[in-house]
């Protein structure tokens, strides 16, 4: 066995079921026995999701790669996975050439791999917060930002487009019905997880409009529009597209909260 080779396991007490296997040195063909032994230990424990920390690996032989693929297969059969993290560029290039990058999920570092696991298992939601001036011209860029984030996080085109429509409508309302001053900011907080997205949009209320807003947006009343009204359809549209829509109107500001459950 190569003298530079080392391998050890770190169990994560904060995330049950996850183990980090740290490799160091050259993963030559003589190391496959040690690799097999360590993954047998992983399988005998409670952990089924393993992150192979490859940050200190400078060589990987095809035999060692085959052993890792075998370990991954066995973990998948148990409902887990083996992913690679921190692979240096040279080895990553070789993995690409061998087609292994199509088999293993490869992450930039261990932290990203664990975050991806937490995301996929629904143990973690992620937040994006944004403030921008209260100006209608800002809205297209904002709605596309949120839509792109949703798409990046695995939401389908239809869901992303609907999210974009919701953000557009709420932001336009926040600007139009808030205090008319472009030096003031609109705030958006997006909370996204694999099952749903929640969006809070906050503006500074126009004191003259607070009463009419409170009357128009009474929670116990259904949002309805009269045939001769030319406005108010936006809110109806949001209501159709979302699973939850609430308003909190005060002198400090109006917060519109929407929840949209992922459909596809």
């Amino acid at each position, binding site marked *: 066995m190569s003298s530079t080779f080392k391998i050890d396991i770190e169990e994560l007490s904060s995330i049950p079921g996850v183990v980090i296997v740290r490799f160091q040195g050259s993963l030559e063909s003589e190391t496959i026995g040690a690799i097999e032994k360590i993954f047998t230990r992983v399988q005998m424990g409670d952990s089924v999701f393993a992150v192979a920390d490859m940050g200190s690996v400078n060589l990987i032989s095809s035999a060692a790669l085959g052993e890792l693929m075998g370990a991954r297969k066995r973990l998948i059969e148990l409902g887990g996975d083996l992913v690679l993290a921190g692979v240096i560029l040279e080895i990553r290039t070789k993995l690409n050439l061998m087609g292994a990058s199509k088999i293993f999920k490869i992450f*930039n*570092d261990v932290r990203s791999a*664990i975050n991806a696991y937490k995301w996929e298992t629904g143990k973690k939601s992620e*937040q994006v917060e944004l403030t921008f001036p209260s100006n209608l011209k800002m809205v297209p*860029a904002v709605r*596309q930002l949120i839509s*792109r*984030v949703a798409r990046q996080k695995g939401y389908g085109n239809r869901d992303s487009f609907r999210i974009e429509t919701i953000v557009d409508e709420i932001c336009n309302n926040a600007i139009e019905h808030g205090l008319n001053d472009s*030096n003031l900011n609109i705030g958006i907080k997006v909370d996204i997880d694999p099952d749903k997205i929640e969006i809070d949009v906050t503006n500074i209320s126009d004191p003259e409009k607070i009463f009419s807003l409170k009357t128009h947006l009474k929670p116990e009343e259904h949002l309805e529009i009269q045939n001769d009204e030319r406005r108010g359809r936006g809110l109806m549209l949001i209501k159709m597209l979302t699973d939850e829509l609430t308003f909190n109107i005060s002198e400090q500001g109006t917060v519109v909260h929407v929840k949209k459950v992922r459909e596809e």
Partner: protein
Amino acid sequence: MDISFPYHIKLCFPGNLEYIPAVRKYISELLQISSFSPKFAYRSEIIVDELCNNAVNFGCRAEDARVELECTFFNDRIEFTIKDQGGLKENVDKLRSSLDSPVSGSDSGMMPHQGMGLEIVRMLSEKLDVKIDKENLTSVHVVRKRENSASE
């Protein structure tokens, strides 16, 4: 309503590389609606991309680490400030060494391709300030001026 300068935006997102494409596009779109040229917007996008990548790769140690991007848009320039929540000492040392020796040498402990990003940011901007505090929190401030219309 026309856009009045200066204006300010603030964006806070998880320290995760997959958010960066959406963030850089957002800044590019804001620049274009603020009457900056597509070339200026694209080059600014490269700056945002590079600095956000550095913040995630070198400055996010905690699992729930976040990156904060603040931009102030002036009539003649844009100013970015990107803050992270502190990276591992070795990562911050790598960042320091790439600041000290603009194009990284083999003795800096970095891969040959690393350290070029900040050099590109330096080339594309008028001013680049990097502050690293005692807790390894890093704040990068960049000023980029609007180019002359003749050169665009």
